[in-house]
């Protein structure tokens, strides 16, 4: 059974399903109740599931994650909404020192099924602190799992899988794509595993790896490249920790060329990790070094500059061209 849903709506539908399936699931965060969140992702859920399960928190992110940990210890499965990417940092200590480590410290006796939802990335002309891409901080933190959704189908299924997971999951949502529509098979029996990458467009010449908001850019690039007679293989990473590298390795062994795209700054970013892994595994297959198309190593700039800051079709195609110059 298939429905057309916007990405934001698909996450909301997935949350609703999870709330129906498991009475232990809770949603908490700033303005998630009556308002339904500033992006309306939780719209209507408090009305239908009550203030006990969907509740507004005080304006304190460390408190959101810290109390979610206590609720998880009590046996709940809290889903925390961080209102915008730049506001997760006050909760950083609770996430990296407590949430990420507690299962390890407890020798496996205390699972922490906490999901932290973070709308991430730029592109909506917002003011500062609203357009950050903090994936690398969390991917570098052992004990956390990190995923990123890019379309309605994944949004609907991955949020449910994240909530069902007994590990803490940092769940990134591409805020500038919330409004994009897509088909969702809500009755699918075998959604792909949460921590799996997916080849979304087969190709022979160059592999392009991306996730979240950059999938659209990757697909558009592939379409444009095709017109120039160049065939790009597009891989949606979907999971950032752990990485699912097998499909990437397989692809690069065929294409010999890889371009990785992300919004975050490049210095010690996730593209660097992919480059290091691919170079080690596919050393003899590489016709060109792995090239990165990313945000620059500056703070996120003023809104009127973000078009120039963010990776776009032209920059991806430029990198694709450069992979043939080696």
């Amino acid at each position: 059974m298939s429905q057309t849903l916007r990405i934001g709506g698909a996450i909301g539908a997935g949350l609703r399903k999870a709330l129906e399936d498991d009475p232990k699931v809770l949603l908490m965060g700033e303005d998630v109740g009556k308002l339904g969140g500033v992006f309306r992702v939780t719209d209507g859920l408090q009305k239908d599931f009550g203030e006990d399960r969907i509740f507004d928190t005080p304006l304190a992110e460390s408190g959101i994650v810290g109390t979610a940990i206590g609720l998880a210890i009590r046996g709940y499965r809290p889903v925390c909404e961080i209102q915008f990417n730049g506001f997760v940092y006050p909760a950083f200590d609770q996430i990296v020192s407590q949430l990420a480590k507690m299962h390890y410290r407890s020798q496996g006796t205390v699972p922490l099924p906490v999901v932290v939802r973070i709308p991430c990335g730029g592109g909506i002309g917002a003011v500062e602190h609203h357009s950050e891409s903090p994936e690398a901080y969390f991917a570098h933190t052992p004990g956390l799992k990190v995923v990123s959704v890019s379309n309605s189908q994944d949004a609907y299924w991955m949020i449910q899988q994240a909530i069902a997971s007994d590990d803490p999951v940092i769940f990134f949502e591409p805020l500038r794509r919330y409004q994009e529509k897509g088909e969702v098979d809500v009755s699918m029996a075998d959604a792909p595993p949460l921590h799996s990458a997916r080849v979304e467009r087969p190709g022979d010449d160059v592999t392009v790896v991306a996730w979240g908001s950059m999938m659209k850019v990757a697909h558009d690039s592939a379409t444009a490249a095709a017109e120039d007679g160049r065939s790009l293989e597009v891989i949606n990473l979907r999971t950032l920790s752990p990485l699912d590298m097998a499909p990437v390795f397989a692809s690069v062994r065929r294409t010999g060329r890889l371009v990785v795209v992300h919004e975050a700054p490049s210095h010690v970013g996730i593209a660097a990790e992919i480059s290091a892994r691919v170079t080690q595994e596919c050393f003899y297959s590489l016709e060109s070094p792995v090239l990165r198309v990313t945000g620059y190593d500056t703070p996120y700039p003023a809104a009127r500059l973000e078009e120039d800051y963010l990776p776009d079709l032209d920059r991806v195609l430029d990198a694709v061209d450069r992979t043939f110059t080696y």
Partner: protein
Amino acid sequence: MVNGDQNSTGPKKKAPAKRRKSASTPAADPDMVQLLTPEGRRVSHPDYDVSMTDDEYRALYRDMVIVRRLDTEGTALQRQGQLGIWASLQGQEAAQIGSGRALQQQDMVFPTYREHGVLWTKGIDPIMPFGLFRGVDLGGWDSRAFKFQMYTIVIGAQSLHATGYAMGITKDGKVGGDDGEAVIAYFGDGASSQGDVNESFVYASVYNAPVVFFCQNNQYAISEPVIRQARVPLFKRADGFGFPGVRVDGNDVLATYAVTKTAMDNARHGNGPSFIEAFTYRMGAHTTTDDPTRYRDSGEVEQWQAKDPIERMRTFLRDDEIADADWLESVDAEANDHALSLRERVISMPDPQPAAIFDNVYHEGSQLVDSERAEFSKYHASFEGSDHR
């Protein structure tokens, strides 16, 4: 004159006491300092009073009318796509003008993103924050030259900066005496829950820093009513940290002025921090992207409408014959002129050059940023003449 230079319009100190037709009866709520009732009646308070010249009364009224008009223009500009977002101060004019006018030249302000009124009282061109909301810059201005720090969007973060700055004032020996320096840190009711804000109370108390925490309790943090932040009045928070807290009618510009002046003077004289809860109301949306009808009813808004800070001041000025109809009209006209000139200047704000992305990441530069800037220029040069962008 495009800005509200405080020498020309601010209350003078040691102003001669004036006639008070109606300053006898005490205010209703003993827990809230009030000097001007919603009906525009002057009332007395045992601990606080102001004696101002008619000029000073009129100046406060003028300030409020102008900043409200400018604020309306901000909202209009956003609606017309000239701004990315606007955070309105409507309803909070008295809290901002009253506290702002109580400051002295040497005092430093640490604002949130809503203190356009305070900015005005510092004599700063009101266009300054529009770069941030238009998206042509990150609000950057010389915060030290203006004695007014950049807007802070991460809730509560500035409270620690303010406290640290105040600790520096003490280290510089600039407290004690009427020319002492003091700091005012603005934040909202929602911010009172943040760890940073509470830590700033600890630091301010332990180091007896000359800082005044000015909390505009406008009853909401976006959609959340203040009961989501605290189940007792916010001004009570201060006591347990070791300094005084007071609630003032934040829609009463006279009371806000009196309370803030006392607190700032205490700070500058070395008597340490204090906390002011300005009890007010956010009449508009949280920002232009918000839809308040989703979480509050019109009845509530109307109740607060009846407590409007400008209305009550106008009534007072009229009843006490401090201002006549002509003058009141002239103020509206002046406010309009300010708004129109602001609008024109905002609309003509130029976009930054693309390469500005790489400016000022560091004060001493960086190999990494320099190389990226070079690549960037090379890359853009490659599009010369093409239809790219």
